[in-house]
């Protein structure tokens, strides 16, 4: 049963990834990326990584895809709604195959221990985040604050704005 679900999710993930590179329409590519990323969240759920699945949906499915769609909306996409220029594909193929050549031996050498999956859920994360890692947690808010103010200043200092 778990295998059936995993294979279904893997097919959706890979299909979405293929659609991202196969489609000529950038908006369709962004949508296919969203499908692929949400399917990865499903894989996380299968291995009881609830928090990771949540992060995957909120950050990748939400924030990153939103930023991509905004980038498409705000640039002069009317000039290239359909990207036909793919002269870089041999380079991309070499890079992808190189990554595969690194990842496959890495997985084969460091075989994952086939232990019983169990539901860690939020208890452990909440306990360690709010007790042991309290200071890094507060620093994270400072980092976010700097990112927010920095992004606002950079966005405002563009040409045509004062």
């Amino acid at each position, binding site marked *: 049963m778990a295998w059936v679900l995993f294979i279904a999710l893997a097919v959706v993930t890979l299909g979405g990834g293929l659609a991202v590179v196969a489609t000529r329409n950038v908006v369709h590519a962004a949508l296919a990326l969203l499908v692929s990323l949400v399917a990865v969240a499903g894989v996380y759920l299968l291995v009881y990584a*609830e928090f990771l699945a949540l992060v995957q949906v909120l950050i990748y499915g939400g924030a990153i895809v939103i930023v991509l769609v905004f980038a498409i909306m705000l640039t002069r996409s009317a000039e290239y709604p359909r990207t036909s220029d793919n002269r870089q594909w041999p380079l991309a193929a070499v890079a992808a195959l190189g990554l595969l050549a690194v990842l496959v031996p890495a997985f084969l050498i460091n075989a994952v221990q086939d232990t019983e999956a169990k539901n860690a859920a939020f208890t452990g994360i909440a306990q360690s985040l709010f007790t042991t890692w309290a200071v890094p947690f507060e620093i994270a808010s400072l980092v976010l604050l700097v990112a927010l103010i920095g992004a606002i200043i950079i*966005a405002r200092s*563009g040409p045509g704005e004062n």
Partner: protein
Amino acid sequence: MFLDDYFRQYGLVAIFCVVAVAVPVSMMLMSWGMSRVGLRPRAPSAVKAETYECGMEAIGGKWNLFNFRYYMFAILFVIFDVEVIFLYPWATKFLSLELFALIEMAVFVGILLIGWAYAWRKRDLEWG
């Protein structure tokens, strides 16, 4: 082992996803099938082809350049989206955490509110 509470709970999410995909796809398939057997009349008109049947008339094409001001809201959304990630384990385990966690989260949200107040004071949240 497999059908424990955890998977039952996310099985509901999976059922929602399946229904959400199946309903529009089946509607389109039915429409297509009806037209194949000659049950669906074919009478296209300009009003039917509009983007919004009831509402403002759409101006310009779908590849319009959008206003740059939307970008500010995208940035704010991304930052507060990351904040929600930290709020989530805190909210679900709130009763088992101590008062210290409440203070921590108040400091965390307070620091981020400074950024929000900055954007507000600099009139980045206004449209004009």
